[in-house]
């Protein structure tokens, strides 16, 4: 098992454990079961390289974290869970991307042998993997840090300011996504 796959598996387990623990500590056994099942489902999807399972897992864990926060589960566990799920989701796509580029130009005969990223010996692939993991580690670490700060720092704002900030945030995000889509096209 290569480094990315190992980290992804660990992240799925961490996300599952964090959310399950959060719900467990809040005495909500159904939540524990749901997230253990979701984690297992994601692991199975990863085993069989099913791309949709990553999206499903990410959506499930985010929704679960949101619900948990709203229902009084300790937000720290939820933040850890959502960050770990983000890393796993990213790595799932990264591994798929490497597999697709590997298979893109190989003949059907040798595609089977070479489909797994583990078989890839190119130095370039290893370099790319390390660069990706480094970037991901920085991004997820920073996200976790900022998330923790956001959870700990308390500001009291009036309702009007909150609404205004919310609208500005939504507008800003909309413009950002619009711009990004244009750039990508």
């Amino acid at each position, binding site marked *: 098992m290569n480094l990315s796959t190992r980290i992804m598996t660990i992240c799925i387990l961490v996300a599952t454990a964090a959310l399950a623990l959060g719900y467990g500590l809040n005495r909500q056994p159904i939540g524990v079961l749901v997230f253990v099942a979701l984690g297992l489902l994601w692991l199975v999807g990863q085993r069989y390289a099913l791309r949709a399972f990553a999206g499903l897992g990410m959506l499930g864990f*985010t929704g679960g974290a949101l619900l948990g926060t709203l229902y009084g589960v300790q937000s720290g566990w939820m933040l850890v869970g959502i960050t770990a799920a983000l890393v796993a989701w990213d790595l799932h796509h990264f591994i798929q991307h490497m597999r697709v580029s590997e298979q893109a130009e190989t003949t059907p005969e040798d595609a089977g042998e070479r489909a797994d990223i583990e078989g890839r010996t*190119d130095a*370039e692939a290893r370099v*790319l993997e390390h660069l990706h993991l480094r970037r991901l580690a920085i991004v997820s670490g920073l996200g976790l840090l900022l998330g923790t700060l956001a959870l700990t720092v308390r500001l009291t704002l009036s309702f009007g300011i909150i609404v205004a900030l919310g609208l500005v945030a939504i507008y800003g995000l909309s413009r950002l996504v619009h711009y*990004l*889509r244009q750039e990508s096209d």
Partner: protein
Amino acid sequence: MRRLLFLSLLVYGLIIAGLATLHGNAVALAMPLVVYLIAALFYSPEKPRLVITRTLSTSIVHHGAPATVTLTIHNQGTQLEEVLIEDVVPQGLTITEGDPWIQQSLPAGGKTEFSYTVEGKRGSYPFRYLHVTVNEHLGLFRHQGWLEVGGSLMVLPEMLQLEHLDIRPLRTRGYAGPIPSRLAGSGTDFFGVREYQLGDPLRWINWRASARHQHGLFTNEFEMERIADVGLILDARQNNNVVVGNDSLFEHAISATAGLAEAFLNDGNRVGMLVYGRGLEMTYPGYGKVQRERIMQALAHAKTGDSLVFESMDYLPVRFFPAKSQIVLVSPLRKEDLSPLTRLRARGYQVLVVSPDPVAFEAQKHAPIADADASVQLALRITRVERELMLRRLRRVGIQVINWQVDKPFANVMRTALIRPIIPINRIVRIER
């Protein structure tokens, strides 16, 4: 793009839910996703400025020989965190070594190259496009597109090696060569006897004939040996081709034509070629290695085809071939070809037909005939008899026909068929008496 949308929707969902429920912790959960999005945006790649050149180790290769394709990439823009360049290998080529793609980081002004080796069957293979994908490490933003980087590889047909071929066209050309010209002059083969003329070498005097006549001397004459015009016709009519599995009778005909062209050109003859089928693809007559290359390239491009005009051989452009020259037709033949070939012979052309046997080819490729039912065996016998009759009719009008079963070595078949009959020495003595 779908990932970007998905992540954006999650961020929206968390923020809206947090605002709607006035729950700041829900908004805080969006923080890792927002950081991820911002990082991807910050490192999003600019439009790549790549200069890519393609080099082929050789543009023309012989059948079965490998060719190496090398692609050199020069990044003239900003740093590319992750670039995937995939070459589109023309259909029909097989990659024997290396990969036709590369995926790596490329710094600003950086250079890289990759190469792979291909092999292919006869034909022309144009390389045209490369697919380039550039993205940042997180893979949310990417540029992709096609770059046109040309190149071409031609795979020459397999050539069946032949030794010298004995042909006897009615007319030869003016230069010395290996073909008996039916004219008296300097040569090695005895041609006749004539009266002695001043200047004849003494060793050419036929003393026996001279002794029988009181009033003169007689000199031996020899047959001049010259080069000739040879016209090759390759039958490329789709209806005449037999394809069983991956094997095609036309491919055997092409290999035979290549071998014949090589053998005739090696003897110094002037050789032209006509591919008759889809249209008229002519290689005008010429000599030597240059002509050999021309013919090989024409054969590399040759394809079978249908044409209402050229369905029969009635429209064979006879003027393409010099009068009374040697014509070699490589064709599986069909009944309708008898009449045009007979006319060709009647015009004074020396016609040699090399006919890859379609019946034997098909029978051999299918299940063993011994196991087939009686009706199949009967059908096969009838077809064989019909073909044999057709070939006999051709032989009867003075056309040399070589029925070639393609599983047999072509050189052996040609040697056996074109061997010049040697008159036994005792028979010569009897004639002189």
